[in-house]
């Protein structure tokens, strides 16, 4: 799971959970996988992000080095920043671990990089 995905993901599937965001990350295995840099895409994606959540998520798994806590107004002209954002959003992969719902504490396992957001039939009754 990439941090860009984490930034969009909720546990609203659970009954009674209102926002289910952000999920806490608990990672037991993290891999760095190189991804081609596309400044146009990163520039388009940044306004869609909850930047604070991204920073905290990166920080919680020990990968916030050099990542600014806030976005500058003219971020699109700052290539170094875009590359940093690219790295954090697309190249850090949580391979094993779990996500935790901020409201209910329900855990969702991540295995082989794929989060499992399924509830049990008991939970959807």
């Amino acid at each position, binding site marked *: 799971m990439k941090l860009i995905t984490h*930034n*969009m993901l909720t546990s609203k599937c659970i009954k009674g959970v209102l926002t289910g965001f952000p999920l806490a990350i608990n990672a037991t295995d993290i891999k760095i996988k190189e991804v081609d840099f596309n400044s146009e895409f990163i520039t388009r994606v940044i306004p869609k992000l909850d930047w604070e959540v991204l920073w905290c998520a990166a920080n919680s798994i020990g990968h916030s080095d050099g990542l600014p806590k806030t976005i500058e107004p003219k971020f699109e002209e700052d290539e170094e920043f875009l590359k940093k954002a690219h790295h954090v959003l697309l190249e850090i992969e949580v391979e094993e671990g779990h996500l935790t719902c901020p409201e209910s504490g329900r855990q969702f396992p991540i295995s082989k990089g794929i989060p499992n957001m*399924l509830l049990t039939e008991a939970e959807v009754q």
Partner: protein
Amino acid sequence: MWRRYLMWFAQEHVDFRHAEMQSILSLFNIQIRYIEKPCIQKPYWIVELPSEDCLRKIASRSVLIKNCIELWSRARSEIQLHKNLQNSLKNTSGTWILQESMNGTSDLHVCPKEMIETYCSSKKTFKVDVETFCKHYTMTEKVKKIEGFSYLPLEGPVQLKNPDVTLSYIEFYGTDPNNVPEEPYDVFFGRWVVDGQRDLIQVHSLKKRHFIGNTSMDAQLSIIMANQAQVKSGDVILDPFVGSGSLFVSAAHFGAYVWGSDIDFMMLHARTRPTRVGQKVRTKEESIRANMKQYGIESKYLDVLVSDFSLPLWRDDLKFDAIITDPPYGVREPTEKIGIERDNYTLTDEHLVNHIPSKVEYGLPHMYSDLLNFAAKHLEMGRRLVCWYPLVREKYFSMGEITRRERKEKRAEEMAANAARKEKEYQNRISDNT
């Protein structure tokens, strides 16, 4: 000056021809003039476009276009075509001399002299191709047809492999192989400009793909869907019934970043039974991600998640540039969601690990209504949901006396893809192609 072109299509998936072309034209915002009203019985369109660049853009996307030719002349017969071309060499007016009629019956079609002469220079290598649609000619017969063009002032040397100029002579004998006329209905001559994306069908062929499932979408239809979704570089797309990720391949090929989800844990982990006949176990290379790597588009892979589409997953304000998907229809795989019919069902903690939840019927109308509502909420303004929708067709057969049979069509080719476009008022419109 607008230029006149002949677009030749594959006589396949004809129901999608118009949809694919309209999507591509509006994606690039290209104006088009139809010189002859398009009809699906004919594998070609005669059109005018503002520039050759427009034509190249269209061809860079269309999988249904075979090739495109700058039209120098057309006629109802070989003799008239030669007459037209010979007259073109004398046409110094700088414009076309035409006698147009909307049903395309006119035989006068004389292009300006310069159009031909630009490509006749002694420095340009050339060749002439002959294609006879729906009728076979031997090599010798074809060479004879080529020799018929000897009056053209082509000064450069002939070169069969990668020449500077490829001229194309086409005879069209209709599309019914059981009813081929003596003389062609239509003949065309012009300069080949560009091919469509037919080669991509082989490149993306499921036969050579690492990971496929029982319901992987065929390469050609996936490309058509990506075109209908007007996918472009840097887009973010979602397939909420992603399966083996076949719809990722074409979307990412055109530059989109892809997210997917599916209820089937075993599928996303490539642990379902192998789909290929004779294969016992899935190999390590089998995963959606490995497919992306196989085609050199791994950088476009975002993530896949195990998730039931009947429940919310994404942040409310997340917007996708397109949703491209092939939902279950209940024919080859059931439409289901997590649930249980029993009341007060509980699970003990020890059962939780590796528990595969039971499912209940989702119901087709319910699922499509969820899909449309989801699209209305999560699509960028003006962007599209492209999905398949099952139709049950009734077919009538007459054999001796009339017997009536009903047949449930499986799907795919027989079904219509629906391009639902998101309107300003969040009203989704499903347009049916059949």
